[in-house]
C-alpha cells in the first residue's frame, strides 16, 4: 500500500510541471495589454576611436522605469527585420559614465544611458558603408513596458585614438629626453652607476680562460620580436667580443631559429671586431629545439657534461629558468642571469651569483660597450623612473586629498591620467 502511495506521489510530482506547461503556452516575451510606452531620445552614433566596428546607443535615463526592469538592445544589419539581441541589462545600469573612456575623450553623463555594441561580434566583418539598425525595449517579467523607434548608424574607422593621448604625451616627453641625453652625451659624457652583475662578466670570462673551460650563453626562449631577446643579442655581442679577445670558448644554444640566425651574425661580427676572425666557428651558435622542455633538457645535458666555467642566462625565460640555473649551480659555474619576466627573477636570485633585475638587462649592452651614445639611453631610463616616481607620489597625494574633501569629478580625472586605454 505504502509502495502504491509513493508511486502515485512520484507520478503526480513528475507530471505536475508537464500539466502546468500543457495549461499555459510556452513562455515568451509578450507585449503588455496596452500599447507600450515610447522610449524617446534614442540616438545611435559611431563609436569614437575605433576601427569602425562598434556603435554607441544613447537615450535619457527614465526614472519612471522600475529598477527591477531590464533594457534590451536589439540590432540588425538589414533594412527591416533580422533583429538580434545585442545586450540586456538592469534598467539603472550602463550610463554615460560607464563607457571606459577618459574625460578628455568622452563626455559621459549619468543622466543618459550609453551602450557600446560590438557589431563584428554580432554580424562579423561588415562592408565599408554598412548601415546598422538599433532599437531598445524596456521589459519587466517578460512584458514589454516601453519601446523605442529604430535608429540607424554607419560605423566608420577613426584615424586617432584620442583616449591614448596621455600615453602619446608620455612617449613624446621620453623621445625629447632621449634626444637631449644623446646630444648631452656627445658633448659632455654622462655618469653611470655601477652594475655589479655586469662588472662580474669580465671576472667570469677570465675564470673560463684560466680554467680552459667553455662559457655557456643561453638567450632564453623568447622570439626576436621580444625586447629582452634583442637586449640579450646586444649583450652577447659584448660578451663574445671579450671571449674572442681572451681566446676562450663560447657556446650559444638556441630555442628560436630566427634568434640563432641573428646571434650568428652578432658573434661573427664580435670576433671580427676583436681581430680574431680565425677563432670563430660556425657551431658556436647551435639550434637545440623549439620545445621548451626539450630545450631545457638538452642544455642541462650539455652543462652537466661539459662543466662550463661560466653560464649566462640573458633574455626571456619561463619554467626552464630554474631547470637551467640549478644545473649550472651544481656544476660549479659562475652564473650571471638577467630577465624581464619578473616571476622568474626569484629563481635566478637563488640559483645564480649575479642577477640583472628588469631594466638592467636592457642597460647591459650599453653599459658593456661604454659607447657614450648608447650610455645616454641609461640616463633616459633613469629620468623615466624619476618621472614615474614623482607621478606616483603626487598622484597619491592628490587622490587622497580628493577622496578626503569629496572632489567627486577630480579623483576620476586624476585616475584617468594614469590609466592605459
Amino acid at each position, binding site marked *: 500500500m505504502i509502495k502504491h502511495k509513493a508511486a502515485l506521489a512520484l507520478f503526480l510530482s513528475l507530471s505536475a510541471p508537464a500539466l502546468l506547461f500543457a495549461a499555459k503556452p510556452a513562455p515568451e516575451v509578450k507585449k503588455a495589454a496596452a500599447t507600450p510606452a515610447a522610449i524617446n531620445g534614442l540616438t545611435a552614433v559611431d563609436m569614437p576611436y*575605433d*576601427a*569602425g566596428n562598434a556603435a554607441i546607443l544613447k537615450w535619457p535615463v527614465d526614472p519612471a522605469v522600475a529598477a527591477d526592469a531590464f533594457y534590451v538592445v536589439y540590432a540588425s544589419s538589414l533594412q527591416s527585420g533580422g533583429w538580434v539581441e545585442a545586450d540586456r541589462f538592469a534598467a539603472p545600469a550602463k550610463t554615460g559614465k560607464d563607457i571606459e573612456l577618459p574625460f578628455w575623450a568622452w563626455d559621459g553623463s549619468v543622466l543618459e544611458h550609453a551602450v557600446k555594441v560590438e557589431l563584428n561580434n554580432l554580424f562579423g566583418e561588415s562592408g565599408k558603408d554598412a548601415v546598422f539598425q538599433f532599437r531598445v525595449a524596456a521589459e519587466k517579467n517578460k512584458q514589454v513596458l516601453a519601446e523605442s523607434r529604430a535608429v540607424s548608424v554607419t560605423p566608420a*574607422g577613426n584615424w*586617432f*585614438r584620442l583616449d*591614448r593621448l596621455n*600615453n602619446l604625451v608620455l*612617449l613624446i616627453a*621620453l623621445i625629447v629626453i*632621449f634626444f637631449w641625453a644623446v646630444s648631452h652625451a656627445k658633448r659632455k659624457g654622462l655618469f653611470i652607476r655601477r652594475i655589479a652583475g655586469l662588472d662580474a662578466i669580465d671576472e667570469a670570462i677570465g675564470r673560463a680562460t684560466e680554467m680552459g673551460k667553455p662559457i655557456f650563453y643561453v638567450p632564453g626562449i623568447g622570439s626576436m*620580436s621580444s*625586447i629582452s631577446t634583442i*637586449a640579450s*643579442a646586444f649583450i652577447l*655581442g659584448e660578451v663574445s667580443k671579450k671571449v674572442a679577445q681572451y681566446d676562450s670558448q663560447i657556446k650559444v644554444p*638556441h630555442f*628560436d*631559429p*630566427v634568434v*640563432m*640566425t*641573428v646571434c650568428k651574425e*652578432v658573434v661573427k*661580427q664580435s670576433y671580427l671586431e676583436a681581430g680574431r676572425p680565425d677563432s670563430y666557428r660556425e657551431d658556436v651558435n*647551435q*639550434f637545440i*629545439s623549439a*620545445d621548451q*622542455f*626539450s630545450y*631545457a*633538457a638538452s642544455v642541462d*645535458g650539455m652543462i652537466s*657534461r661539459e662543466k662550463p666555467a661560466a653560464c649566462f642566462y640573458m633574455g626571456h625565460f619561463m*619554467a626552464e629558468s*630554474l631547470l637551467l*640555473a*640549478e644545473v649550472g*649551480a651544481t656544476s660549479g659555474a659562475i652564473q650571471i642571469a638577467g630577465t*624581464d619576466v*619578473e*616571476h622568474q627573477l626569484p629563481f635566478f*636570485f*637563488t640559483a645564480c651569483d649575479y642577477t640583472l*633585475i*628588469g*631594466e638592467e*638587462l*636592457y*642597460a647591459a*649592452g*650599453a653599459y658593456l660597450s661604454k659607447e657614450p651614445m*648608447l650610455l*645616454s*639611453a641609461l640616463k633616459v*631610463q633613469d629620468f*623615466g*623612473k624619476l618621472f*614615474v616616481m614623482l607621478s606616483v607620489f603626487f598622484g597619491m597625494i592628490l587622490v587622497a586629498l580628493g577622496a578626503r574633501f569629496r572632489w567627486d569629478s577630480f579623483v576620476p580625472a586624476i585616475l584617468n591620467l594614469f590609466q592605459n586605454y
Partner: protein
Amino acid sequence: MKLIKKHIPLAIVFVTGVLTLVSYYVPHKVSVDYIETMNKWENIVVAFAFLLGLISLFFSHYHKIKRKGDGWGYSLFVFIGFLAMIIPAYTSGGKQMVEGVLTPLGWAYKYIYTALSGTMFAVLAFYIVSTAYRSFRIKSPQAFVLFVAAFILILGKVPLGQIIWDSALGWTGQNAAGVIEWIMSVPAVAGKRGIMIGISIGAIVTSLKIIFGIEKQYMGKD
C-alpha cells in the same frame, strides 16, 4: 656599398618601427591590416628560419657522431627522436586521432613526447627544493628577509603550519592566512610593480634606440 650595408637597413628599421609605433595610436582598418600583414611576414620568415635551425641541428650532431666527440651517443637520439615523431606523423597524415582511435602520431605524442615533457617539468619540483635549501642558508640581511617571508608562507600554506602558528604566535592575534595575504598583496606587489615599471621604461628606451638608429650592433661595424 655603405648605402646597401648601412643606410637602407637603417631606413627599413626606422620606417617599420615608426609605422608600428604609430599603428598603436591609429585604430583605422588600414593600421589593423598593416599589423596583420607584418605578422604574416614574420610567420613566413620564422618558417624558413626553422628550416635553417633544423639543418644546423642535424649538421652539428652529425659532425659530433662522425668525430666521436664527448657524449656522441646522445646525438644519435636526436635522429632517433626525430624519426620516432616524423614517420608516425607522415603515416598518420598529421592527425593524432581518427574516429576516436589514436593514430601512430597520437600514440607517439601521448606516450613519448608528453611523457618526456611531463618528466622534465616534474624535475622542477626537486630543483625548487634544492634551490630553497641553498637560499635558506642565511648569509646576508637580504637572505634573512627572504627566509622569514618564505617561512611564513610555507607555514601558512600547510594545515600543520597553521597549528604551529596558532600555538607559537597565536598571542599576536593574527592568523597565518592574514599575514600571508598582507605579504602577497603589499610588499610583494609593490616590489613587482617597481620592477615592471622599470622593465617597461627600459623596453621603450631600447625600442627608441633601435628605431632611431642609435643601437645598430646587429648591422655590424661601420
